């Protein structure tokens, strides 16, 4: 492209040159596309690693000395790995069972006690094992179960109630043993490991199963708890990366190799009281885990549909049990505030303001985790129904209050003038009219509640959304299962809206004498 030609030709050449350069750079980029992520990490100077500090110690947890900081052996591991890549480590908080989803977003890798499984080998980039864990069952001192063998038979009051971290190997293992009939237990999934420790301590659960290092770390804080028998199963933790970032995966794997070889990993585990030498021996002899094979769509649906449907049943149960309760309480509160004695009004107003002013999640937490501390342990389902009912009762009471006020005063005076008592007037004249007036907002609240039931997964009640998220992640079929789940939601909400329309029509139906 150096030919000194007339001006016109030079321009053409330049144009050609630009095109060629563009084409070349596209080819260049394409050829390096699946490796560009490592350069991106280096350019950024940061390795973004995701974990859940709610998961607790010794992995990643708020530093007791300064809760704004996080600490844990994985925090240090992340820093070591990042150091090997020549960058800094940046922590990204996520909900534990959904950490892999962050790989599609902003996280470069997940370092948080992620167990190496055939499914994860298939769906993600998995580093070599960096830690060996074993599963440990825990119970209360002096209470059954005393040994792992006890779990083979039901407890004194039915199947043992056993808490696990949702989506963890402990959950998979216990559900598998339970479905094979080897243990007689109801496996209850929690969003945080400490939640299940709390619940065993307050006798809501009979036992919990978790990684041995977690119990070792918290054994002093939960003095009432003891290990039930020796650890009984186990595996390895892996650093998870996205399938689309193979070069980063290799770089991280190499970094781990270096840390293993030069003794820094052993020193790290020794610092955290995690038996460095034993870890090194176990890691050295870790067997290769082959990736699982992909399921066909039909297989996938056949396997997941029964679970999804039963969780849909839970969604329906939660809404249909809690909403009538919410309406009853809400109506009573509204009537109390409008027509009750004056001493009743401040507490009722406070009731409404507190329940409206605090998140549903917090209320569910209080009912489920705090009430047992004062000796009032409710089963999760009851706690969920109660929590939803109380929360929505505040909103319904405001709606009914507005509805009652919208009934003309003359209606009330006419009823009183006929000799009806205040309560009879309410029951026969005011409330029926208010109910009709508020039908539309109440219906839309029911649909809102229907969707809000998903919050109940925080207190171990697994409804459709939670079931979807657990299944989608464990099977790595996020899109297909999302479609199935959406279809189930539609099948539920459509009759619901038909029902509410029928209900409205029925209430507005003219003529006809009621008996």
């Amino acid at each position, binding site marked *: 492209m150096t030919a000194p030609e007339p001006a016109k030709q030079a321009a053409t050449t330049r144009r050609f040159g630009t095109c060629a350069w563009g084409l070349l750079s596209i080819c260049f980029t394409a050829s390096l596309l699946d490796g560009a992520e490592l350069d991106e990490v280096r350019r950024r100077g940061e390795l973004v690693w995701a974990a859940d500090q709610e998961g607790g110690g010794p992995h990643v947890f708020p530093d007791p000395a300064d809760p704004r900081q996080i600490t844990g052996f994985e925090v240090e591991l992340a820093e070591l790995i990042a150091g090997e890549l020549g960058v800094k480590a940046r922590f990204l908080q996520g909900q534990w069972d959904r950490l892999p989803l962050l790989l599609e977003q902003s996280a470069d890798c997940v370092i948080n006690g992620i167990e190496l499984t055939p499914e994860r080998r298939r769906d993600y980039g998995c580093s070599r094992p960096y830690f060996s864990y074993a599963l440990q069952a825990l119970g209360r001192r002096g209470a059954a179960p005393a040994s792992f063998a006890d779990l083979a038979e039901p407890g004194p009051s039915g199947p043992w109630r056993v808490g696990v971290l949702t989506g963890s190997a402990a959950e998979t293992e216990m559900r598998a043993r339970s479905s094979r009939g080897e243990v007689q237990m109801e496996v209850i999934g929690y969003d945080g490991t400490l939640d299940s420790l709390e619940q065993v301590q307050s006798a809501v659960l009979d036992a919990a199963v978790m990684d041995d290092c977690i119990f070792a770390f918290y054994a002093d804080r939960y003095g009432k708890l003891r290990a039930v028998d020796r650890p009984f199963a186990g595996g390895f933790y892996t650093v998870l990366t996205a399938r689309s970032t193979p070069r980063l995966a290799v770089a991280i794997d190499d970094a781990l190799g270096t840390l293993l070889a030069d003794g820094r990993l052993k020193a790290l585990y020794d610092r955290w009281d995690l038996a460095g030498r034993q870890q090194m021996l176990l890691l050295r002899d870790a067997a290769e885990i082959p990736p699982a094979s992909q399921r066909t769509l039909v297989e996938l649906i056949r396997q997941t549909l029964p679970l999804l449907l039963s969780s849909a049943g839970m969604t329906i149960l939660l809404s249909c049990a809690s909403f009538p309760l919410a309406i009853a309480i809400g109506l009573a509160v509204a009537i109390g505030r409008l027509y009750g004695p004056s001493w009743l009004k401040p507490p009722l107003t406070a009731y409404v303001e507190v329940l409206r002013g605090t998140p549903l999640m917090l209320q569910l937490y209080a009912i489920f985790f705090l009430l047992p501390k004062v000796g009032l342990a409710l089963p999760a389902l009851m706690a969920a129904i109660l929590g939803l009912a109380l929360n929505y009762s505040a909103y319904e009471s405001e709606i009914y209050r507005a509805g009652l006020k919208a009934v003309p005063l003359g209606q009330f005076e006419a009823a009183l003038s006929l000799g009806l008592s205040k309560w009879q007037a309410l029951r026969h004249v005011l409330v029926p009219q208010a109910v009709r007036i508020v039908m539309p907002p109440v219906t839309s609240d029911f649909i809102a509640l229907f969707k809000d039931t998903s919050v109940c997964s925080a207190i171990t009640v697994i409804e459709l959304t939670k079931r979807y998220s657990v299944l989608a992640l464990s099977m790595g079929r996020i899109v297909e299962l999302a479609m199935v789940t959406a279809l189930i939601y539609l099948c539920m909400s459509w009759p619901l809206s038909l029902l509410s329309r029928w209900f409205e029509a029925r209430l507005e139906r003219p003529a*006809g004498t009621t008996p």
Partner: protein
Amino acid sequence: MIKVESLTKHRSGTPVLDGVTLAGEAGGVTALVGPSGSGKSTLLRCLNGLECFERGVVSIAGHRLTPGPHSGGVLEALRRDVGMVFQQFNLVPHLSVLDNVTLAPRTVLKNTVAEARSRAIELLDRVGLGSFAAARPATLSGGQQQRVAIARALAMQPQVMLFDEPTSALDPTMTAEVLEVIVDLAKAGQTMVVVTHDHGFAKRAATWVVELAAGKVARQGTAAEML
């Protein structure tokens, strides 16, 4: 049957009723007249306890109301014997005409459905609406609704009926049909107090006329003396 002595009531500091005393025979048909805002409705509402008052005494149908808030029991007992008909009818919209009329007998007097219904049909016939039993109030004309409201009040067999401008919301034809019913009642010996602007009606039906002005009794006397 009705006695009112030095009744005084204030609303936000200003007197609405100022020492109202009703003289004359306590029975028959009393017409309450006077300019708008003179306190007619307030006086009527004091008679069945929809309003409290500060001074004076009300005796009606054997019940006694004293100053200050009234207890629920006293009011319920009084209102069984004192019916009221409003300018705006105030029928219960989601109940049929028949159910409007049977509501109080069933809930207050605990009549059986059959009892209450047969009596309600009689009353609806009496006000000329026997064939509208199954209709909803909203499908009726104003005059028809007011006649249902009268039947509804009568279902409690009250000793005294109070009417607050029962025809003010109605056009002349409907006014005539409602007044017809009230005049019939008067002829049948029903004790009643009627707030009205209709001097023709007062002349025709009233035995005693009270004229209020600014919360005070301006004049009172027999219909012949007053009109």
